[in-house]
């Protein structure tokens, strides 16, 4: 599983990118396999609902194993650049909050807040410009979808 490090040290072993990638797919597939117990595989003449998922899970495990087996050709795990992780995590949290609010407080409020938080707190844009963009874009989008395209967006519980 673990590829040897450079020959000079001979002692340390390093984990490579595909050890983790392949390993994750194997573990996840085994877990899903365990969840598939109630799905009947059936027979070849009468395939059941579980046949396709179980075949595919078998393939996922096989391809995951190939990745692990050939992981020595992949770069070390430590070379993956996680410099964008903080930005990604922040965007995910803000987007998740907006989705939570989307059907509860309506499109206008949730999206205005989403834009405001991203622009003002994360991108550090000026307050007035942020307010103008957040409100302007939200109202324009609301009018475009709700009024012009007749494609209803979640309403606000109060007046929209």
């Amino acid at each position, binding site marked *: 599983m673990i590829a040897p490090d450079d020959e000079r040290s001979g002692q340390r072993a390093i984990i490579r990118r595909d050890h983790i990638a392949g390993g994750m797919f194997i573990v996840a597939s085994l877990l899903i396999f365990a969840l598939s117990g109630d799905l*009947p595989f059936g027979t070849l*003449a009468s395939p059941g609902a*579980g046949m396709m*998922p179980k075949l*595919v899970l078998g393939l996922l495990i096989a391809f995951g194993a190939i*990745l692990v087996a050939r992981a020595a050709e992949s770069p070390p795990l430590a070379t993956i650049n996680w410099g*964008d992780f903080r930005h990604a995590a922040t965007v995910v949290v803000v987007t998740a909050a907006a989705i939570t609010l989307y059907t509860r407080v309506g499109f206008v409020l949730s999206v205005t807040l989403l834009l405001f938080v*991203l622009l003002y707190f994360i991108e550090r844009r000026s307050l007035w410009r942020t307010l103008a963009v957040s409100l302007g874009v939200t109202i324009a989008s609301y009018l475009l979808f709700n009024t012009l395209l*007749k494609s209803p967006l979640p309403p606000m519980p109060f007046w929209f």
Partner: protein
Amino acid sequence: MESTIDSLLLGFSVAFRPDVLLYAFLGCVVGTLVGMLPGIGPLAGISILLPVTFGLDATKAIIMLAGIYYGSQYGGSTTSILMRIPGEAASVMTCIDGYAMAQKGRAGAALCIAAVGSFIAGTFGVIALTVIAPPLGAFALRFGPPEYTALLVVGLIFLAYMSSTSLARTLLMAAFGILLGCIGIDVMTGHFRYAFDIPDLGDGIGIVPVAVGLFGLGEILSTPSQSVTSKVKAPRMRELLPTRREWRESAMPIARGTVLGFVVGIVPGSAHIISSFMSYALEKRISKHPEEFGRGAVAGVAGPESANNAASTGAFVPMLALGLPTGPVTAVLMAALLIHGVPPGPQLVTQHPDVFWGFIASMYVGNLMLLALNLPLVGMFVNVLRIPYAYLYPLIIMFCIIGVYEVNHSIIDVWIMLVMGIVGYLLRKFDFDPAPLVLGLVIAPTFEMSLRQSLIMSNGAWTIFFERPISAGLFAVSAGLLILSAVSLVMKRKDWRAKLAEVEASESDQGRPS
């Protein structure tokens, strides 16, 4: 042939209706913008705007969405040439010599050659599509479940073989997509599969949340705003005309790129990306001055740009004639047709001639529109690139949420989009291409149904796949491709796929392909 011309005339009568022209124009404009803007590619653009077409009839909807697709191929060249940022993944090769030409003060000429090459290739592609798709559709009427199973298998193997990442990685992604496609009620037995008592999952996972999450949100998560520059200088109108020498140097590369791109486009996989690489490699190999490549060779712009446009048209052949997507973009376009109650496939020509021929005729018109849009108005379009990315990505997130929610008015779909965004981010970190995942998701229902029907038909005898000539032939092709892959693996030979991966990696270090 006469009936084809009559049908095409029917198509033009649809395509020239003012309302249809308007939607074709809108699609072309949006496509150009989508192609230019880093962080949002044609797949995300089409997925996000899919709900906008719900109020339209099927003809207008597919014409607008297809306009976004081939429009993005035109627009992608602009950022590649002016900023060395491939706004669209297929424009990676154009970055090399297009940007070098811009550095020499020939940005206008490079843009003009790219636009004219794209126009010629796009128009040739539509003519070939007009001729090939109807007879291919008629032939496909002979297909039964075993043939469809074999066709889907060969499609997946072809996709994996053509991919610039490894065969195992691509097939793993496709299998992951098929597994996602298994979620929901099994239509043959009524069993709930992996729905976890969530009623919304009973209908399965939609293509739109997955595609928007992987390609829209996933791209944004991987792109901190500080890393995006928006310095761009628009060429002046009088700088747009290439010299006589530049025209001469671009003529044959455009012709070769057009034919090569169309042929590659029919093959499953991210054909428009592969075609531009193959065209670049071909031009460099046959050039009398290969040392000019990388330093502003006209052929290095003309060939790849023509190839990727011809390929995007070629990709419509299997989609329209066989009902099979060759990539994620055609998969989403297929989903759009299905949402509008028009199943693509062999019977599309006979059952919905207005949609089929209207769509084809609109592509002739669309290519003309794009030529007009991309030359005189290039100065106006590049202004969009001056919008700071810090303002752009919150808007894209907003459109992702609206786009996904509006498909089914389901908040679960929006959560799926967010989860797929995180998955897309992680997949990029581990060097997986998410495109085969979407393709797997799209073909999953057809694949499962045709496989199970084949087995039931034969009373469990899997030899049915080798007893019927078409499916046996298709499986032989699959086996051949697997052997070819194994040979290059054993020989440790660096073939064109490995070279493509290297170029993509080096270009994405400098820009951000979408």
